[in-house]
């Protein structure tokens, strides 16, 4: 779990609008905080699919699963089980 979280934070630091001073809590909304926009969200989903070799079913593409660090970590864990 911690490893996934670190990987996601590293991705966001490199590929999103998050700068080094941004304080991000695990439940913060990535879109509402302006860290990712609509294109960034598609890129994030592509990254997760490729990195963890998972197919994400359409019905799981919800803000609950992909709009916060906690949501992302949980869904990756669920789909890689």
């Amino acid at each position, binding site marked *: 779990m911690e490893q996934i979280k670190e990987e996601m934070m590293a991705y966001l630091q490199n590929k999103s609008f998050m700068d080094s001073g941004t304080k991000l809590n695990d439940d913060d909304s990535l*879109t*509402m905080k*302006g860290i990712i*926009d*609509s*294109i960034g*969200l*598609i*890129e994030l*989903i*592509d990254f997760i699919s490729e990195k963890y070799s998972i197919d994400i079913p*359409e019905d799981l*593409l*919800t*803000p*609950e699963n*992909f*709009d916060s660090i906690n949501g992302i970590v949980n869904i990756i864990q669920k789909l890689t089980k």
Partner: protein
Amino acid sequence: MIIIDELNKDTEKNAFKIRTFIKRKVQDFKKKGVVVGVSGGIDSAVILTLAVQALGNENVYGLLLPEEESATISTELGARLCELLDVSYEKVPITPILQSLDIYAEKNRIIKKTCHEYDSDIHKTSLVLPALLNNDMLNIPSIRLVKDGEIIAENRLKAKDYLELIGIQNVKQRSRMLIQYLYAEKNNYIVCGTTNKTELILGQFVKYGDGGVDIEPLADCYKTQVYALADLLGVDKEIIERPPSPDTWSHYTSDEDFYWRMPIQIMDQLLYSQEYALPIEMIEENTELSEEAIDRAKKHIDKVRSAANYSVSPPTICYLDK
């Protein structure tokens, strides 16, 4: 307050203001008339009619600018409108421009990559987003394949492919802009845009495409108000009743399917309620949506508006004295 009634009132006054605006702007720019791209849709039909009323039919030029994937009916309706208003017009297909840039081949390549079963001889295609009001799905675009009116596949686009596809698609509107200026400059006219307020707020136009114009007479009218204007002006019912669409996909893709993700009446009521900071109880009463659905829709609108900042921004100047 009934929001729809608020939007539908003052239609005659709005028509008068728009006619005055068109006439004054043509004079201000010291030009002789306007060129209007006539798409066969409601916005350009309203603009063409108001422009004729403002300037006289001899000072308005209609351009029908179809391409390979345009619906045939679009050109037919546009031509019918120009003839009804006795406006000089020309049909200038932009397909050769698009072919010279390999637009169709590139588009087909991306569609094939996304939907392996795609066959351009058999399938029609469209770009869609999930509906928003009844489920909380992310704004992830998909390619839809349609055969004989039936959806046979709908696959998600990868970010890189989506961005490339948007760039490819936007060449269509930008090609139309080139042709409109060719005719405007030849006649000493200005180019009249057809973007309405709903589209302007949501960035639902192509920068330097259909947004590349000299005046935007409709840009303070929500789409709902454009419908009211169309009724007042007696626009062809067939044009009014067509689902609005950019008409750039072989399978007719409505604005509701790709841009709004909800019916236009709901979208306009939500935008209006944001503009006038209306209380949630009033929005619930007007839209008959739950507080949860309204919240979801508003979040979607805020994200779209934020992304639209880029589209509505003119070239930014570096002022040396500031």
